């Protein structure tokens, strides 16, 4: 059966299993979303936004939508994928199913729990009705597909004036299942006035099984809220991820989304920031280090709708072998958005003869009093710097590694959790085969 037909059957099954409340607004949203998906189908290279990323090879696999078998996972098997050096809240899923055993949630003053409960229980209705699926892209069929199936995922609501004392880790593990998995997590994060939260998200396959994850996250930062979001993508070679993150910011809020893509077969990061207030700061940082035939696509959009806001975008990429990368950075400054400061930078190093990067800065500026800049570079390693290092006695291989490590450094410096920073530094060093201590 083709994946699209299989999804239709599964959607019908989901609607009729009675696990969902058919009376709620969410039901209507789901049905509408599935109809949208059915009408459009999966995106193809004919769509402008998917010109350089083909889903064909990942969609051709035979996936199971709702895996039957339950797999137990011991903490010791997955501990290394947590930032375990720090105390944190944890929301953990195994093959798309919540694991209470590995999780640490809370309802004490803040809600760090499950999307599935939030979608069902009346006490969350106000928040769900107000926020759910209000900023997720309605044009993108793959986003609609996720909306149609939205059930499992993280629900995080931080009421006003709270500094969440420890980071929240959201982890999705997939195990050695008999079937290929198609997972669709859906996350909702609402941070009210003056509150502050740090979130780390990771998708990790524990086997070489084929896995496709289609994830959607909506983040709402209300006035003066601060949200730091980190995405660690270092998955197995048969795991692919389509990640869509939508952010809405109100006055004086600061949101940073940092994406570290070091693995997986195909990774697509769609990141959308919508500023609806003044004095907002939006930060988008990314590091991509891939090889073999891996593919990473970073698609970002920042909508500057109001005056006096900033956005800072820094994406670094190192591509070896036959790996391919895409960077598409849109910055749209509305006529009203005077005094906007928007900076965008995308620097790439191609190490492989067959490695390619398609980079496309796209600035649409309708206001006349703005500071906007974009810079994009594609290059090889600096030969004069290499010779300089070798002259001081550093062998060519180490010198190359150090130069590449240094190339990523300004993006690593953006990480505000020290243990995570050290973890990412180590990951980068191991990807580049560099001795740390640097």
């Amino acid at each position, binding site marked *: 059966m083709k994946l699209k037909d299989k999804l239709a059957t599964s959607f019908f099954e989901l609607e009729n299993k009675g696990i969902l409340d058919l009376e709620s607004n969410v039901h209507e949203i789901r049905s509408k979303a599935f109809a949208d998906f059915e009408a459009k189908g999966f995106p193809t290279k004919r769509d402008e936004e998917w010109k350089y990323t083909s889903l064909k090879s990942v969609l051709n696999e035979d996936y199971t939508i709702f895996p039957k078998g339950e797999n137990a996972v011991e903490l010791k098997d997955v501990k290394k994928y947590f930032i375990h050096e720090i105390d944190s809240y944890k929301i953990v899923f195994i093959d798309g199913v919540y694991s209470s055993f590995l999780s640490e949630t809370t309802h004490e003053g803040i809600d760090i729990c499950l999307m599935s409960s939030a979608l069902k229980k009346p006490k969350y209705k106000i928040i769900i009705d107000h926020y759910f699926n209000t900023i997720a892209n309605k044009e993108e069929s793959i986003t609609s597909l996720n909306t149609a199936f939205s059930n499992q995922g993280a629900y995080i609501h931080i009421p006003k004036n709270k500094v969440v004392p420890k980071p929240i880790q959201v982890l999705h593990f997939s195990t050695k299942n008999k079937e290929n998995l198609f997972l669709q997590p859906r996350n909702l994060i609402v941070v009210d006035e003056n509150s502050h939260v740090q979130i780390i998200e990771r998708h990790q396959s524990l086997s070489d099984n084929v896995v496709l994850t289609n994830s959607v996250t909506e983040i709402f930062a209300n006035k003066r809220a601060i949200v730091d979001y980190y995405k660690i993508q270092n998955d197995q070679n048969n795991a692919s991820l389509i990640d869509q993150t939508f952010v809405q910011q109100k006055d004086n809020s600061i949101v940073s989304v940092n994406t570290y893509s070091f693995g997986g077969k195909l990774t697509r990061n769609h990141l959308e920031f919508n500023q609806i207030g003044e004095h907002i700061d939006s930060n988008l940082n990314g590091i991509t280090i891939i090889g073999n035939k891996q593919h990473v696509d970073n698609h970002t959009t920042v909508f500057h709708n109001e005056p006096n806001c900033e956005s800072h975008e820094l994406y670094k990429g190192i591509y070896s072998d036959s790996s391919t990368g895409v960077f598409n950075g849109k910055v749209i400054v509305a006529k009203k958005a005077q005094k906007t400061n928007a900076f965008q930078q995308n620097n790439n190093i191609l190490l492989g003869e067959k490695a390619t990067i398609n980079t496309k800065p796209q600035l649409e500026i309708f206001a006349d009093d703005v500071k906007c800049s974009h810079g994009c570079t594609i290059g090889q390693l*600096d*030969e*004069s*710097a290499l*010779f*300089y*290092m*070798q*002259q*001081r*006695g*550093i*062998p*060519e291989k*180490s*010198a190359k590694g*150090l*130069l590449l*490590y*240094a*190339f*990523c*450094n*300004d993006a690593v410096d953006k990480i505000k959790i020290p243990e995570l920073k050290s973890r990412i530094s180590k990951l980068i060093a191991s990807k580049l085969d560099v001795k740390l*201590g*640097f």
Partner: protein
Amino acid sequence: MLIIKNLHASVNDTKILKGINLEIKAGEVHAIMGPNGSGKSTLSSVIAGNGVYDVDSGDIILENESILEMAPEERAHKGIFMSFQYPVEIPGVSTINFIKTAINEKRKAQGLEDLPAKNMLQLIKEKSELLEMDRKFLSRSLNQGFSGGEKKRNEIFQMAMLDPKLAILDETDSGLDIDALKIVANGVNKLKNENNAVLVITHYQRLLDYIVPDFVHVLKDGKIIKSGGKELALELEAKGYDWVK
């Protein structure tokens, strides 16, 4: 210590060095002077092993061993140091980490363990004081945003740390004001002893007032056309390079 025999070198098929002969013994300071385009910087780059240049014929022998086939890092491990005319900026790598890595790579090549952190710090303290360097510079990215003078001082600091047998100073005086020049020259003089040697490459006589050479060679059109003692530098300064024929 270093013997250069009938060295011919070119870049992209353009011949630059056309038969250089030079012998430098331990304890000596040699100066190579010459007009722009005479091949001075090519000579230093070829000794250091820059792959941009092709050695067409001849040989370079360091302590009875030809170094022509050696990678730049191997030459560095054998004790060759070159202070660059234009030191490279490396964002993201601090000077201190860079020099630590360089020292430990050299030690590794010599079969030694990493230098203990305590000794490393002591050495850094000593050598940065010698060059009157602000320690804050050491934790900044290598040469990034440094002035010309700071970069040159940083070169000599690294030289002091690495303690080479043969130090090549390529146009070290360019970009230095007189105070910085004195500090740099003073540093070089303090590092000088009977077991090492210095090759100063310069366009002007100015630096040689402070680093006094035992021998001066005039390089023109890829060849050494005249050699003499330190007084030759003064004569060149007064009469210009056209005087030597």
